[in-house]
């Protein structure tokens, strides 16, 4: 029989502990549906399921309501059946990012020609990026591209929107220093050349407007 747990308002580790107790008395193939009120609790539940090799799926209902479904699996079945084993990998969030897709913004303008136009085009590019069904895994900004992730940038809200959906937003630290922007970085994290090189090497596709 499938069970429901309302763990909203519970502090960690109670959502996981209550779920664990419930699952102990359940048979393989049965599921428990857990409601929690924050993303960290979702991640802890998914982490628990992954450690126990149970399958899990989660859904964000609204800002304060998340649903996690954990299905008890017989570990022996997973060893026997590789297809099922693949499915048992955690799928924490409906992921709309294309793994291996890297967007490089090497300037705060797009194309060569009039500067004003270049800036307007870049703003439109980042905005259009947020509207894609499939988002990139990472956006890297360097040279004058560093201006885009800093205070005063027209693209700030769009980059924040991308970050909120799990897209990594990275800005070159050397470039921030050069343009004296280090104190003004307003979205994402700082990166370095080793990291940029490695990410470019590993990328399946690099998009550079």
């Amino acid at each position: 029989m499938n069970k429901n747990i309302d763990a909203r308002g519970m502090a960690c580790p109670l959502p996981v502990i209550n779920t664990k107790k419930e699952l102990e008395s359940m048979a393989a193939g049965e599921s428990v549906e857990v409601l929690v009120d924050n993303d960290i609790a979702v991640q802890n539940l998914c982490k628990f399921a992954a450690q126990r090799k149970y399958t899990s799926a989660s859904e964000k209902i609204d800002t304060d309501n998340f649903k996690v479904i954990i299905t008890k699996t017989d570990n022996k079945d997973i060893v026997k059946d590789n297809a099922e084993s693949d499915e048992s990998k955690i799928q924490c969030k409906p992921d709309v990012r294309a793994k291996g897709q890297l967007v490089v913004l090497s300037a705060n303008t797009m194309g060569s020609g009039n500067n004003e136009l270049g800036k307007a085009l870049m703003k439109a590019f980042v905005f259009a990026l947020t509207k894609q069904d499939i988002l990139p895994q990472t956006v890297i900004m360097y040279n004058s591209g560093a201006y885009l992730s800093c205070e005063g940038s027209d693209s700030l809200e769009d980059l924040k929107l991308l970050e909120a959906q799990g897209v990594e937003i990275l800005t070159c630290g050397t470039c921030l220093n050069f343009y004296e922007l280090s104190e003004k970085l307003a979205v994402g994290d700082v990166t370095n050349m080793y990291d940029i090189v490695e990410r470019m090497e590993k990328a399946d596709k690099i998009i550079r407007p």
Partner: protein
Amino acid sequence: MEDLVFCKGGGCTAKLGAGALNKVLSKLPGKKDDNLLVGFDASDDAAVYKISDDIAFVQTLDFFPPMIDDPYIFGQIAATNALSDIYAMGGEVKTALNIVCFPEKMDMNILGRILQGGNEKVMEAGGVLAGGHSIADDDIKYGLSVTGTVHPDRILKNNSCQKDDVLILTKPLGVGIICTAMRVGAASDEAVGKAVKSMTTLNKYAAEVFHDFKVHACTDVTGFGLLVHLKEMLGEQYSAVINSDDIPYFEECENYVEEFYLTGTAQKNRNYMGDAVQFDIDSFMMEELLFDPQTSGGLLASVSADDLEQIITRLKGNGIDAAVIGKVVNRSVHTVYVK
């Protein structure tokens, strides 16, 4: 004035996540003062302000809700934790002020026991309790605002390690996991005893030893867990290799991690580290220990390999079972490698 957008999302435990906090702090405007030797932009343990060429004062405050039933022990732990930041900066404790939130209807004897425990630790630290501030609140919270002094040339920064340094940790990891197990009534008396002893041990005794050597960088390991504190220490310039076999921890954690007595804060720390850490090990328990938020944790020091033997001998002489957990290397792709 335009409203500042700070951060979105809720949390699970008392401490705010490192990522969320950085975003908020980075939005506050600052005034430049050359005498402020260490401010919050350095994400260091305490603020340091120079008042003469020989003296700077070190300021810090720390308070939190109880993690243990016994009010006297809670007072000791909260005070030990608050005092620790002074030691992490290489300073000496001078004065402390109580910070108290307490329900009006609750037995005042409980508050008395909390303050008694706190005061004993302030005295052990060689400081004096000089006042405080209390407000009526729904829940108990207690801690200290502490002021100490340090010579401006002897400040122990948290981000100034050097290549080939070795990393020393002065307390075992896992008190966060034990406290979580305790909260759900699953911790053994023995485990709680060990955790309490660790959380009420002043970092004074380790700091005294470090004071006599050229320690390159030092911080106390607290809510952000070992890895996030280590990441701050390494900055952009260095990476570190941690030997998981050398990480000291409370053995009960093996079972408690298996039972998933894990905090939300540890998960926030894991998210904050992201791929800054690479695990070349297959131990979920060790990963969780390295992310475990420490209440009143030990000091993490980065020292020259030449001084190592003497430092360890002196620490042992002071009753501290310190561990050498890894070393500082040239910057590589990831900030921390756990072998």
